[in-house]
Structure formats: structure tokens, C-alpha cells
């Protein structure tokens, strides 16, 4: 690579990094506790483990008590609407019921966890309070909704450009150095340059995956919006004339779920949208089933079920762009390999913070050394000596 193209790549690396580093640092730092969301929720009592059942209770628990859970949730919030029922992917006995002030409200008014075997409520999930929810919003949308998400997505795209330009520059920087050289006895700037290069290049695979999947996640709103406008609208087209149901949107959810499960072999509940919700029809449930193999369990199959008689009306595979989103999520969260993978996610995140921090430090140092001779009242020879010192 010749000197002028190195210079160009340097310029790209500097400017893409300057634009996104502060946001990338924010994302990496807030990401640290988010890796352990599940554990922190458990420790704070936001979620509880389902209790051990007696032999008699186990014998009685032949199928999940969906209707009882939904009735209970409805009683706790009169006038509110059940929006979603979902099953915890870590513990198949645990179900979550989400309610909203309207059936299609963007924000939930309550989320209850239930023990599916007994139909008893386990805990109410606290909404929008506590430090974890602040961390979550900072990580996801900067408290700015969709524009905030898309902004962070754009920062992610710029971060990819910064990573790529960094990799291109790694070659010329390492031309005379062995892999892993860390010149600890030299000036601080040299030491941190080596650490920046070493940690940057070893975390390349992970950091790129997490950045790209993070960008895809920022598009989840538009991606599901597109699915609703196309696939869901097509599935509901024959029933459009029926209009919305009167009164409660709760109509034998257990029957609907069982019909959907019978329709798609080897599947289990991912989540289920209740009538009136954007993910369902005005009088129809949409049950999103996941497969029961490691890969298939990340993907969903939507099944449209008539709320009035529990009949399966339609079922269509999700389009590739939705599946891409669903596959991206675990690759971003690192929640698919148990505790060891989470610890690794945390560690790699820490290394990435060092890469970002050292990059910022190197830029600040370089900037100061070039400004210093102009500002300081030193003579020309002193200035030359300083510049030599700064550039070795």
C-alpha cells in the first residue's frame, strides 16, 4: 500500500471513528450489564423462579392453564386489554402476559409472569423504573423512540466503516512488527497504539458480528411494520369486512393456541398476539410458533386463528427479512450458550471498550502534540525536538 492510500484510509478511520466513538462507547458500556439482564432481573426480584410442585400438583398439571392466566391478568387490570402471551425461552413453565390500555398500544400497562402448570401469578414485571430500564433505553433508543433507534443504527453503520478502515490500516502498521507486539517500555502513545491494534484485530470477528446484528435490530420496528403491511394484511384480507369485535378481545385463547400447535408439528409457543393488536387481526389471534430444534427455535411461524371458533384460518412462513432479524437477535445478545458465553460476551465487550478508549486517547494525544508547537512559546529547535519525541 502506498503512502497516499494509507493517508486516505487514515482519514477515513479518523473521521468515522470520531463520529461514532462516543455512541459506540455508550453502547458498549450499557451493553455490559445488559448481557446479564436475565440474572439481574432474577436477583432484583423482577422475575422469580417457578416453585417446586408437589406430586399431586404435578399430576394435575397436564397442560398449561392459558385461560386461567389470561382471566387472572384481565381481573388485575379491568378495562385494559391483553396484548400478548409469551413463553419464557429459558424456562418453559413461565409465561408472560402483557396488557395495554388499548389492544394496540405501543407501550404495555402491565406485564405479569405466570406459572403455566398452576395458572398462578409469579410476579409483576416492573415497567419503566429502576436503573436497568434507563440502561436499556440508552442502549436501544436514547429515550427517543424510533428516531433514536435509527440514529444508533446509523452510528453502527459508521462503526462498521471504522472497523473496516482499521483493519486496512493494521497491515501497514504491523509491517515491521511481530503479531501481538506490545512495546511496553516505549512512550505511552506507542504502548496504547500497540494495545489498540492487538485488541482491535483479535476482537474483529465478534465486534463486527455484534455491530452488524445491532444495526439489524435497530430496524426491528420497520421490519415488523413491513410484515404487517404485506403478509399479515394478505392473511387478513378475506375477513376485512367483519370489522372489530365488540367488548373484550379475550376469547378462549387456550383453544386457539392448541389449534395452532396442532396445525404446525414439532412446535411450541413463541408468543401469541391477541385480537385488535397490530400483530393480530380484529377478530383473530396470531400465534407465533417456534420450532424445537436449536436453529428452528429462533425462527417463528405465524398461525392465524379465528377467535370465535378456534379454527386455523391461515399460516405462512415469515419472509426472509424477518427471519434475518430473528437470527440476528441471539447473535447480538449472546444468550444462546449459557453462562460461559455470557461471560465471554462481557469480556469481549470490555476489550472493545479498551479499543474505543485507546483510539480516542491516541487521537487526543496526536491532536495535542500538533497543536502544542503552535501555541507554546518554545523556540524552533525545541519544537522540532518535541515533534520528534511525539512521533517515535
Amino acid at each position, binding site marked *: 500500500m502506498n503512502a497516499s492510500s494509507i493517508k486516505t484510509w487514515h482519514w477515513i478511520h479518523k473521521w468515522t471513528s470520531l463520529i461514532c466513538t462516543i455512541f459506540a462507547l455508550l453502547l458498549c458500556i450499557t451493553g455490559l450489564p445488559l448481557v446479564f439482564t436475565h440474572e439481574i432481573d432474577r436477583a432484583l426480584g423482577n422475575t422469580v423462579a417457578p416453585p417446586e410442585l408437589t406430586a399431586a400438583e404435578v399430576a394435575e398439571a397436564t397442560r398449561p392453564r392459558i385461560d386461567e392466566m389470561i382471566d387472572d391478568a384481565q381481573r388485575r387490570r379491568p378495562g385494559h386489554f391483553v396484548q400478548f402471551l409469551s413463553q419464557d425461552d429459558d424456562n418453559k413453565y413461565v409465561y408472560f402476559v402483557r396488557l395495554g390500555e388499548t389492544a394496540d398500544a405501543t407501550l404495555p400497562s402491565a406485564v405479569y409472569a405466570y406459572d403455566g402448570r398452576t395458572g398462578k401469578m409469579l410476579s409483576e414485571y416492573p415497567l419503566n423504573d429502576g436503573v436497568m430500564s434507563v440502561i436499556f433505553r440508552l442502549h436501544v433508543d436514547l429515550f427517543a423512540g424510533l428516531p433514536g433507534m435509527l440514529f444508533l443504527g446509523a452510528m453502527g453503520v459508521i462503526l462498521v466503516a471504522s472497523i473496516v478502515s482499521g*483493519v486496512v490500516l*493494521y*497491515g501497514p502498521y*504491523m*509491517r*515491521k*512488527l*511481530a*503479531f*501481538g*507486539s*506490545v*512495546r*511496553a*517500555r516505549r512512550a505511552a502513545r506507542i504502548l496504547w497504539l*500497540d*494495545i489498540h491494534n*492487538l*485488541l482491535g*484485530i*483479535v*476482537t*474483529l*470477528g*465478534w465486534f*463486527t*458480528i455484534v455491530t452488524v446484528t445491532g444495526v439489524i435490530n435497530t430496524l426491528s420496528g420497520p421490519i415488523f411494520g413491513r410484515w404487517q403491511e404485506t403478509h399479515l394484511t394478505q392473511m387478513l384480507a378475506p375477513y376485512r369486512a367483519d370489522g372489530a369485535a365488540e367488548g373484550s378481545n379475550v376469547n378462549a385463547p387456550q383453544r386457539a393456541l392448541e389449534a395452532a400447535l396442532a396445525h404446525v408439528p414439532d412446535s411450541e409457543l413463541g408468543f401469541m398476539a391477541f385480537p385488535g393488536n397490530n400483530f393480530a387481526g380484529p377478530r383473530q389471534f396470531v400465534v407465533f410458533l417456534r420450532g424445537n430444534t*436449536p*436453529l428452528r427455535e*429462533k425462527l417463528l411461524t405465524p398461525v392465524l386463528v379465528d377467535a370465535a371458533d378456534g379454527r386455523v384460518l391461515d399460516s405462512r412462513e415469515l419472509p426472509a427479512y424477518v427471519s434475518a432479524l430473528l*437470527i440476528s437477535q*441471539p*447473535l447480538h445478545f449472546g444468550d*444462546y*450458550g*449459557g453462562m*460461559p*458465553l455470557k461471560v*465471554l460476551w462481557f*469480556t*469481549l465487550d470490555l*476489550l472493545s471498550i479498551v479499543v474505543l478508549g485507546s483510539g480516542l486517547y491516541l487521537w487526543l494525544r496526536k491532536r495535542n502534540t500538533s497543536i502544542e508547537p503552535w501555541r507554546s512559546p518554545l523556540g524552533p529547535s525545541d519544537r522540532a525536538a518535541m515533534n520528534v519525541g511525539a512521533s517515535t
Partner: protein
Amino acid sequence: MNANTNTNRTALEVWGMPVLLTVMSVVALVVGLIADGVADIVACIGAGAPVVVAAWHVSRAVMRTR
């Protein structure tokens, strides 16, 4: 191994380890996603290798300065 020499390094010397570690970690993370059990251990080893390599080189440098 001398850290700093005046001779240019070959492409293999410069890019061997970076390519190996990157391919290893990406393949391992994807394998862990599409299979369970042993695959999760593979995922941890593959994605953990970069951490071990980095820790090794940084700690060696710290030792040398003492």
C-alpha cells in the same frame, strides 16, 4: 521472538493470526447458534481464543517491563 525488526514481514506473518482468530470466532459463534450441547462448548472455545491470545501478549509485555 524479537518484537521489532527492520525487515518487512510477509503477508502470512502479518495476517495469519488475525485471519485465523477471526474465522475461528465467527464460525464458532454461528455453530453455537445452530446447534446445542457440544456446539456451545465449541462456541466458547472459538470466541474465547481471541481473549486468551490478547491476554497472553499483554501479560508478556507487562512481565518484561518488570
